[in-house]
Each structure stands twice: as C-alpha cells, then as structure tokens.
C-alpha cells in the first residue's frame, strides 16, 4: 500500500534534507577549491545551473522548447550593467529590474507565440535570440557593440555591524552569493514542481486540450513558465557581468542557448536535479579538455547525441537504472 500512498509529509521532509545537503556542499566547496581559476569555474557552474534549471522548468515540465535562453541571459546582463553605468542605479536595484525585464520579455514572447506549438515556438524563440544578439551587436551607442563594455564592478560590499565586511571582488564571496542565489531558486522551483503547479504544467505538456477540459488555462500557464524560465536566465546574466567584468555580445550568441539545452538533455529533463548534473558536467568537463580547443564543441555535440540516442532520460535515468541493477528488489522512493 505504501506504493500507492507514499507519505507526502515524509517526502517533503526528505526534500528538505536534500536542500540542506546541497547547502552544506555549497558552503564547503570553496574550502577545497582554493585557486582563483577553479573558483571562477565554480561560479560559472552556479550560473549555468541557474540557466539550466530555468530552461528545464519550461521545457521539462510545461513541454515548451525555449531556445531564447541566451537572449534572456544577455538581456539580464546588459540591462543591469547599463542601468548601473548610465543611470547610476545601485547594483541590487539594477539586478531586480534586469531579472524582471528578462522575465517580462519571456512572458511577452510566450504570449505572442501562444498559437505556436512545438517546432514553431522553438523557432520563434530562436528568432528572438537572433534579434537580441543583433541588437546587442549593432546598437553601438548603447552597448558599444562588438567593442564591449569593460571594467564592470563587482556587487557592492556588504557590511553588517560588528561583522567583517563582505566584498564580492573576493571570488569566494562571489561564489557564495551566486551559488546561494541559485540554491534558493532551485528550492523555490522544486517546491513549485512538487505542488499543483507542477501537475498543471505537466498536464499542459501531455495534452493541452485535455488540460483545458480540466479548467487549465494553457496560454496563461505557458506564459508563467516562460516568465520564470527567462527570469532565471536574466538573473544569471546580472551575475555574469560583474563576474567577468566585461560584456561582449558574443557571450550571448545563439549557440549559448544550445549549450544550455545540452545541459538539460544530458542531465535529464523533467527532473530539476538532472540539469544540475548536466550543467556541472558540461561546465567542468570541457575545462579538462581545454588543450583540445574547438574539440570542446564536439564533446558537447557528442554527449548530447549519445544522451538522446541511448539515455533519453539523461544522467538521472542512468542513475536510476544503475540503482535498479545494484539493488534489484529495493524499491525506490
């Protein structure tokens, strides 16, 4: 009977334990990773996880392929940076506006693409990514085009009375900031997908006509999922600018969307934890292959192809299969 009625309270407790474990890992990582090169990679990892879980929310749950993630990433990065540079806004205000702007752009895109499904929505979002890239490249008076924006300052130092100051020029602190933010977003998304919102989005993914017959407003929920997804990308962009210190349009070229898609697919879409593994793997692995130059792209392509062909559920499915092999009668959950 335990299989048909798993205790919801126990599941929710188990989830909280996992959140805690993740928090401990985040807290401990900089203790083991001390050189600045790898600390920078850890931060890039955190941002890629943010981009990937955002994409998975709309793709894995609502079933809508969003290939505009690179554009929302760029929107967040450029708008927050320009708000600080041109209007003198404080970083965190610019962060909030940049994130919301990306989210609103996502909702609008979904709203106009509401009649498009499957390939057409994917193509519309891809078109959006191309347009945003071209704007970043050609609106030179605003973005300085291919020359880029240089010398972007880190987020302002935080000082609590009686405690040492926290400066985000320090990579350890910047890691805690970005990874902590990513963890919070993960927890919020995880809570949502394990709520009736998750049921609603998967119902839309499975059959929109059927979902409507249960009172589900497909266009509204798709716009919601798109907004959440693109806001996550926008937030990642807001952190990207001060991390790198430089913004050039090429960082937000359309291929970035496919990189993020690869992370989701390799990790296993439709589970939030999958894209985390996918993002870590596809961020860290290429660092070991740096000497191979453009071979890195081939690694990306090959891993996605292999995942789609042999393991459509990605790393998460591989893990489950392995566990099944090792403990055949041990029921999961």
């Amino acid at each position: 009977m335990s299989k048909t009625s798993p205790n919801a309270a126990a599941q929710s407790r188990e989830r909280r334990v996992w959140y805690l474990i993740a928090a401990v890992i985040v807290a401990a990582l900089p203790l083991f990773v001390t050189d600045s090169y790898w600390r920078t990679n850890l931060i890039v990892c955190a941002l890629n996880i943010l981009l990937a879980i955002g994409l998975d929310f709309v793709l894995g749950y609502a079933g809508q392929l969003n290939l505009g993630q690179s554009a929302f990433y760029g929107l967040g990065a450029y708008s927050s940076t320009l708000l600080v540079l041109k209007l003198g806004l404080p970083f965190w205000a610019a962060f909030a506006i940049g994130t919301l702007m990306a989210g609103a752009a996502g909702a609008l895109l979904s709203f106009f693409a509401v009649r498009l499904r499957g390939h057409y929505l994917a193509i519309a979002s891809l078109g959006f990514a191309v347009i945003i890239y071209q704007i970043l490249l050609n609106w030179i008076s605003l973005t300085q085009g291919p020359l880029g924006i240089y010398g972007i300052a880190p987020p302002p130092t935080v000082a609590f009375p009686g405690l040492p100051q926290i400066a985000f020029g320090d990579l350890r602190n910047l890691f805690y900031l970005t990874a902590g933010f990513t963890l919070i977003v993960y927890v919020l998304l995880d809570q949502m997908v394990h709520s009736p919102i998750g049921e609603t989005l998967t119902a839309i993914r499975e059959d929109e006509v059927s979902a409507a017959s249960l009172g589900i407003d497909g266009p509204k929920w798709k716009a919601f999922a798109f907004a959440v997804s693109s806001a996550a990308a926008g937030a990642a962009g807001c952190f990207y600018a001060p991390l790198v210190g430089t913004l050039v349009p090429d960082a937000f070229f359309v291929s970035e969307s496919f990189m993020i898609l690869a992370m989701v697919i390799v990790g296993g879409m439709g589970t939030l934890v999958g894209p985390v593994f996918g993002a870590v793997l596809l961020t860290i692995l290429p660092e070991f292959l740096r000497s191979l130059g453009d071979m890195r792209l081939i690694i990306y392509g090959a891993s996605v192809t292999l995942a789609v062909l042999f393991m459509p559920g990605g790393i998460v499915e591989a893990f489950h299969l392995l566990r099944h092999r090792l403990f055949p009668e041990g029921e999961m959950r």
Partner: protein
Amino acid sequence: MNPAAPKQADPPTPLLEAHRLCKNFGGVRAVQDISLTISAGTVFAIIGPNGAGKSTLLNLLSGVYQPDAGEIRFAGLDLVGLPAHRRVRHGLARTFQKIRLFKQLSVLENVLAGYHTRHSIPPLQYLLHGAAFRADARRCRAGALDLLEFVGLAHRAAVPAGSLAYGEQRLLEIARALATSPRLLMVDEPAAGLNGAEVAALLRRIANLRERGVTIVLVEHNMDLVMTLADRILVMDYGERLFEGAPGEVQAHPEVIAAYLGAEAL
C-alpha cells in the same frame, strides 16, 4: 397521457439550453440548427450514425469549438465565446471519444490534475509548502482515491495511465472529469471498446452519478445503455436533428428506425 412517465409532476429546471447551434468545417455542415434543453438531474442521450455531428455538438457545448451561430446557456449563463477552461469552473466536464489521458502520468496523477480549479493553497505556500499546503494535498489525494474507487481503478493508482487497458482508460477519463466536481458531465462514447460486464458496471456508475445529482450528456452507440439510462434522447443525422423524445418514442419512430437503428431493430 403516458402512464409510465415517472417524474413529470413539477416542470424540470433546465440546466443547459442550446438554441439553433451551427458549426461548419469547410463545406461540411457538422452541426446544423440544433436546439436542446437539458433538465437538471437527468440523462440526456445523443445518438446518430457515424459522422452525424454528435462529437462536434459536444465540442460546442464544452468549448473546444465555438459555434458559427446559435446560443448556449448554462444555468442562465451565456457560454458562447467562453473558452473551454473557463466553462469548467461553472461546472461543465467532459470525456473524449478519442481517449486523451496524460499517458506518462500515473493514474492517480491524472485524477489529481482534475483538481486544478479546486485547490485552496495560500499563494506563498506554492513556493514553501506549509501546513495549509499539506492539508490541501491530503484532501485532494483522498478525493482522487475515492473517485478511483468509484470507477474501480483504486488498485491501479500508481501505474502510468498509458499502461491501462482500453476500458480502464475510459473509466479513468470519467474519474478525471469528475475530479472537477461537475454539475454536468458529458461523456463521448464511454462504452466503446468495453465488454459486456464492463458496460453493465458503467451503466450502474452513470445511474449512480445521476442519483447524486450530476446531470449527464451521453453520446453513445450502445443502444441497450442508451435506452436503459436516458430520460431524453436526441437523434442526429447529417448534423441535423432527426427526432427528440423519450426512449420509448425513439424506438417507435419510423424515421429513426430507418436512419439509425436500422437492421438492428428490425
């Protein structure tokens, strides 16, 4: 006049009224000038040969299509222009002739999805589950299991909906539609593909629903089921209304026999 007529004492209150509905697909007049009045607490059957327009009529009533002309009123509310998902909140639910379950989700999850309009969770608890969230989850889960019990699928709650036998899938669609707590349930060929015992069980369940006060619109080819259950029957042919009446009148109507019951009745 008719001594057998059971409950003609007080005039029944109409729950759903349609007036001169029309729907064309290109040159095909799928529904033409159909008017109907469905009383609360009754079973209203729609029969007719293949392609007569029964499913299209159901799609008009449920909001999958909007009519080219005509009116639909549900408990006094004008439904024309209202999208399908908005009609659910007013108490309309339906199943599909071509089964449309969420195949990858479990049987229980399919029914839980039907609770979409019936949750009571404070918005912030979607982001951080609290006591009210868990209470809502328990309530919906218990309700969903009750509905699965009602259709005889409780023992299948954990399996993917796609792995159910055909007849079971039809029953699951009914349970999922009932999860919206409808006042009017429209079922499109619920007995298609069911064996004799399953049809008998289906008949009991529909009768049971009517006793609970749910009004039923039944599109069905199985004449035993229709004649046993229906209070009123609308006979359609080529998108048009051929006849409407009580089961006895329909069986006696020469045109209906010719057009539809045909050899079976002779």
